[in-house]
């Protein structure tokens, strides 16, 4: 079993007719993802990739094709509205890839998620990947391999790096989850850790974090109290100066809060095996697995 997505996931793509939407929906289709429909306002009635019907609204798409997940690839100015539309339609899983959504838009989205039926992954996420079952994101498929390691991360390319290291060492992945690099996000580390802990396919967990905020410290507390499986962790930004935004909107040390040192100390104290540098992530996971 994987978490959040599997072979039966029926995927809707919001923003499917844009350049990015077309490219990535094709990549997902080629991987075997069951994309059932697309939505672009004003483009209803068209077909993309010769077989995927496009609708004007999510509600119409749901009535006709019954998706249970939506991947959002729309520009930042319109993305929050697209998430709200998916929440309104009651779609249980929404993965928002878009980077650069205004923070106050996401604050409203986050508030509307409370009490809704929807789990949001992201925004500013590379998406979800369950190797061999379903790809719902923009990650390069070829580096993945089906297996038993779950990965949860705030960064895209750094996740690919970890996946590659695992695959090269012969370890596959159960699911990789990019929770997104923004300050306000839907699903947190803790939600994903909990799901991995309960997932029988997952035997070890890699947590990839970075400077900014205190999500990794909270995750460390959760790991210490609840996680029964071996955990390896890498935190990016040991060399980052305070007060400077390092690419991701959320990657900034404010005053003395959000430093890599504080996060590493918390994760270490929680029993996680710490990767010494980004080339050590796969090896750290293997060290954690061999501890027992």
């Amino acid at each position, binding site marked *: 079993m994987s978490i959040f997505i599997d072979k039966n996931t029926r995927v809707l793509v919001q923003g499917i007719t844009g350049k990015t939407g077309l*490219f990535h929906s094709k990549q997902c289709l080629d991987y075997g993802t069951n994309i059932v429909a697309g939505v672009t306002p004003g483009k209803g009635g068209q077909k993309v990739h010769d077989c995927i019907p496009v609708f004007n609204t999510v509600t119409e798409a749901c009535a006709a094709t019954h998706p249970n997940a939506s991947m959002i690839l729309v520009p*930042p*100015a319109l993305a929050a509205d697209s998430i709200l539309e998916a929440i309104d339609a009651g779609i249980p899983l929404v993965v928002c890839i878009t980077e*650069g*959504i*205004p*923070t*106050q*838009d996401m*604050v*409203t989205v*986050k*508030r*509307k998620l409370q009490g809704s039926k929807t789990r949001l992954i992201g925004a500013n996420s590379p998406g979800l990947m369950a190797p061999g079952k379903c790809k719902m994101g*923009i*990650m*390069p498929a*070829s*580096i993945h391999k089906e297996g038993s390691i779950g990965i949860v*991360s*705030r*960064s*895209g*390319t*750094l*996740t*690919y*790096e970890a996946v*590659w290291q695992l695959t090269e060492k012969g370890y596959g992945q159960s699911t990789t989850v990019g929770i997104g*690099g923004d*300050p*306000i996000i839907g699903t947190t580390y803790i939600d994903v850790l909990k799901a991995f802990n309960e997932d029988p396919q997952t035997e070890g967990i890699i947590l*990839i974090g*970075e400077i*900014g*905020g*205190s*999500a990794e410290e*909270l995750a460390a507390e959760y790991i210490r109290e609840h996680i029964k499986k071996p955990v390896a962790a*890498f935190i*990016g*930004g*040991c*060399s*980052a*100066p305070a007060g*400077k*935004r*390092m*690419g*991701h*909107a*959320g*990657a900034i040390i404010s*005053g*003395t809060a959000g430093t890599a040192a504080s996060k590493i100390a918390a994760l270490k104290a929680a029993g996680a095996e710490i990767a010494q*540098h*980004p*080339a*050590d992530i796969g090896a750290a996971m293997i060290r954690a697995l061999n501890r027992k």
Partner: protein
Amino acid sequence: MNLHEYQAKQLLANFGLDMPMGVCLEDNNPDSIAKALVPFQTHENVVVKAQIHAGGRGKGVFTENGQHGVQVVPLNQAEQAIASMFGNTLVTKQTGSEGKRVRKVYLTEAISVEKEFYVSILIDRTQQCPVLIASSEGGCEIEEVAQKSPDAILKLPIDPLLGLRPFQARKVCYLFGLTDELAQRCVQTLLKLYQAFVKLDASLIEINPLVSTKEGRICLLDAKVQLDDNALFRHPEYAALDDPYEKDPKEVEAGEAKLNYVALKGNIACLVNGAGLAMATMDIIQHFGGKPANFLDVGGGAKQEQIEAAFRIILKDPNVKGIFINIFGGILKCDMLAQGVVNAAHSVQLKLPLVIRMKGTNVEIGKQILKDSGLPLIPIDDLALAAQTIVDKVK
């Protein structure tokens, strides 16, 4: 985006907030100064404030003359105070020892302060919503107050669907010890501040201090506003507020090329795709004893021209003694990257050592392009070995 105090106050004044009258001077010529002082002719004193993107100006000191960054002076000494600031370097707790050069000076009315308070509104990452932070100890750094007397601080989460409610604003007034008319005025001030926070798409509004005066005013004595970069598309008029002098020129050029670049102090330039990997690449250089010269994320969909622009920008840093390129090609294809690097290296006649590590899409074609270029590039597949190699090369 960070704003100067005078810009922040101009934006906040549009929401009907009360603040001391002020005029910003952009040059040090006698005519401009005389004109700027006209509105203050009936005043005894005037406040002269250096405009830089850093806090601690009042206690900060100019390296040239030992004067402070905020000076309250009699009107006839205003010119002297202004002259002590223009073109000089102000060092504060937040600027680092190199300080910041002052190019703008703000003149404001001196008001009779009765009590000083602290108020800020920001997005709280832990609570995932806006919060209002208030303290009865104005004029101090909020982090210090939080440590010494946590009871003097109120932190109120705000429901974004409802906005700041009057009952919340009243709690703040009780904390401040305000009653009657002054309390009512303070409630209105706080509600307007929250309106401004939303309408401006701010990520931070900090008023330190907010003051009450003997005349019964609730006044914004200082103001710090940060605007959300991601929301700037909704406010094209804010583009004019950006002060390029407050940034490293390389960062300005990178912004124009749509590259994410942060200048650092080391000697190994980095060129990476993806923010997380870019930061981790700096870390691995540091891990093996080297010092990164910059953070640079060329993004997932970089084009060849952007790679070439990135190359030019990192080489403008005179400290750079070597280059490390680390690419995990997903959408970005290694052959395109390799061609961009080869073109750029040829055009600048690169002499510095360059270690390049590529993985992912079209990596074999990319490696062939590097090989055929005849350039002395060092391709290494293993990330740790690649980082060690560039660290050794610059030693």
